[in-house]
């Protein structure tokens, strides 16, 4: 791997190596630019064939070098429901390894539908929300979705494309490159329910290849899926699908254990590089010089880093003249149910997410009484310890009753997990905790979030639909979820929203910060509205589009175009 000296001014420094950072690194390095990717985590199994561990206990209590997610004990964060509360220690974490969250994620890879980019125009806004149209249309992004699907390696159904308002799947100029994951028993039961209830069910769209593709082998259905690193490189993470291509150009260095604490700027307000702690060398502070900074640190760390990058010129944090950095946080909310079936499903085998129910994706405010929709997914996969700790439904948490129910329900439960289109609310934020510090002495991330009333209705709706579907599928017993408003975790979006007006957005339609001409912010934080959750494919497509623009601009010698 090519390495650069920190004093060497590279063309691009990219903060983060996940869904967006991986695409940016690959595209920029392939175009001939020098790139340093800052990753605060370790290498993971990058560059090895099958080193991720399937041992559930080790995966649950990893050594620092084996860690795939951030550790809330060092990367501390706090949480509160609203601004009147004092925040308490939080459990928010995110992918923290070369490849970021794509190393361990469930890998659902749905596109946004065309109307998800223009919900304000099509469906109107709502009091107490920041619903707005994106500054970019589906038609503009569509080619980049295809590029992402084919370069990253996405499996999915053969798609019957409709373009009308009730469409359940986005129109695609190319089919999915790889055939879908197996049916699973959950899929068979969804089909049964769908026939009775007249629902549309398809295989999940997943960044998991099912057959050899781009030099990688297909999924072996091992079952150690979401939360684990893939042992056979079948999950199309940035670490196997993108970063190796970037490194192979000889233009890209991945610098691990590098925890960026500030984006530096000069007197003219341009970014000059980043300052980071080298965790591998006593947290020595290092400044990496760069012509242009790309921030892809995820929907929570990206706004935090902007807010940490205060200077005389940018006293409210970098790129924050709008005051919107960290605001409009959207996290992964949903609601579902689980049901018991007579025969074994063995959902623990194969990929985590099975069949998808698409019928409730479109908006239907009139009938349902709430704004937005959701994609329902069938699951049931639990590793043994996870299953035992969560315990059986409707039973004690220990003793003979626990054991009996645990054994009875084992492998016979099907769970529906459904994401809703969480609404952007200005008071849902990521900011800097005034008191708590992380292990490096920096202000800890503080998450403040309570979902809009609309979203509680949506959660209840999907709980009710799940009960209906499970019963139609023949469940002998059904347990609806309790409504549970999210406290953070995966799928964070919206915290550096894109838009044409610098007063009401943080970045422009090409992800350039309105306030800093050579700073690009590309990840879930750019989202204006949440879509139907499942954000990763859109993050990837946005990154391809941003990189395309950057390459063209940089080739003219001016990334500030």
């Amino acid at each position, binding site marked *: 791997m090519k390495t650069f000296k920190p004093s060497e001014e590279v063309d691009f420094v990219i903060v983060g190596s996940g869904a967006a950072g991986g695409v940016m690194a690959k595209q920029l390095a392939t175009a001939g630019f020098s790139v340093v990717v800052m990753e605060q985590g370790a290498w993971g199994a990058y560059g090895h064939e099958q080193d991720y561990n*399937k041992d559930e206990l080790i995966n649950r209590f990893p050594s620092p070098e084996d860690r795939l997610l951030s550790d809330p004990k060092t990367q501390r964060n706090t949480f509160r429901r609203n601004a009147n509360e004092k925040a308490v220690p939080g459990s928010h974490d995110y992918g923290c390894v070369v490849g970021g969250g794509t190393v361990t994620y469930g890998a659902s890879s749905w596109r946004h539908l065309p109307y998800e980019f223009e919900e304000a125009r099509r469906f109107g806004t709502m009091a107490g929300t920041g619903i707005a149209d994106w500054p970019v249309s589906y038609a503009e992004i569509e080619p980049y979705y295809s590029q992402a699907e084919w370069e990253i390696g996405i499996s999915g159904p053969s798609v019957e494309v409709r373009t009308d308002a009730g469409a359940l799947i986005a129109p695609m100029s190319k089919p999915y490159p790889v055939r879908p994951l197996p049916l699973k028993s959950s899929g068979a039961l969804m089909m049964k329910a769908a026939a009775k209830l007249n629902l549309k069910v398809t295989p999940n769209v997943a960044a998991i290849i099912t057959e050899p593709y781009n030099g990688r082998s297909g999924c072996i259905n091992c079952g150690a899926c979401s939360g684990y690193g893939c042992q056979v490189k079948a999950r199309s993470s940035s670490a196997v699908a993108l970063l190796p291509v970037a490194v192979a150009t000889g233009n890209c260095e991945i610098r691990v254990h590098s925890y960026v604490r500030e984006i530096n700027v000069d007197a003219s307000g341009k970014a000059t590089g980043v300052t980071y702690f080298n965790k591998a060398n006593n947290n020595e502070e290092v400044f990496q010089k760069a012509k242009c900074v790309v921030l892809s640190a995820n929907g929570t760390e990206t706004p935090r880093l902007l807010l940490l990058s205060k200077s005389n010129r940018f006293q409210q944090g970098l790129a924050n003249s709008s005051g919107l950095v960290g605001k409009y946080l959207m996290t992964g909310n949903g609601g579902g149910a689980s049901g018991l079936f007579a*025969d074994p499903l*063995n*959902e623990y085998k*194969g990929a985590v997410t099975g069949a998808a129910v698409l019928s409730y994706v479109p908006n239907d405010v009139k009938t349902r009484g709430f704004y937005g929709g959701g994609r329902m997914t069938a699951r049931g996969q639990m590793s043994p310890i996870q299953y035992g700790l969560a315990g059986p439904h409707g039973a004690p948490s220990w003793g003979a009753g626990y054991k009996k129910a645990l054994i009875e329900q084992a492998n016979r439960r099907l769970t529906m997990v459904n994401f809703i289109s969480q609404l952007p609310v200005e008071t849902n934020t990521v900011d800097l905790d005034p008191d708590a510090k992380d292990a490096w002495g920096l202000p800890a991330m503080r998450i403040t979030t309570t979902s809009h009333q609309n979203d509680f209705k949506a959660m209840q709706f999907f709980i009710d639909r799940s009960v209906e579907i499970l019963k139609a599928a023949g469940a002998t017993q059904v347990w609806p979820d309790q409504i549970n408003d999210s406290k953070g975790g995966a799928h964070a979006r919206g915290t550096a929203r894109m838009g044409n007006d610098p007063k009401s957005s943080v970045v422009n339609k090409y992800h350039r910060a309105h306030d800093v001409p050579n700073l690009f912010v590309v990840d879930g934080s750019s989202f204006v509205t949440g879509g139907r959750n499942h954000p990763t494919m859109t993050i990837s497509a946005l990154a391809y589009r941003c990189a395309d623009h950057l390459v063209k601009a940089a080739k003219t010698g001016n990334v500030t175009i």
Partner: protein
Amino acid sequence: MTDSRRNFLLKSFSASSAAWLAANWPAEVAAAEKAQAMGAFTYFTREQAGEVDAMTAQIYPTTDTPGAREAQVIYFIDTALVTFAQDKQDIYAKGLEELSRQTNGRPLATLSADQQIQVLTAMEKTPFFRTVRDHTVMGMFAAPQHGGNYKKVGWQQIGFDDSLNFRAPFGAYDKAEGSW
């Protein structure tokens, strides 16, 4: 080599359960004897191990199928407290003192099963009980290399096959349905 581990195991089982074990799982009992090669406890004193072992036996009891005792969960916990769960040592130390107060210093295992359940139910919201409960579950279902789940008895009960890979169909319903 001390015989503490073997003696501990044998004393843990009541006479009837030892006979029942020998009848039903001769291999397991033989192996438990063989386990003496593993030596004494790493973290617990024998008295502490006895108390925690009795707790695990109520949390995941031996019924018509093996429980925490047969899965040797106590060895999982003993190892856990010097490895990934070192930060829980204090909870165990204080919790065991509290347990002793609750039983007036009598070993938990010497109480009747009903009395044991009563004592533990009164403690079930404490960090100590919750920790032992979670560690018992982990000891039942973690890979045997970590000391519990002896001979995969935990995995067998919940029908978990630890093969490295699988081929569809996986369950009864996809088998009946075929593929997409």
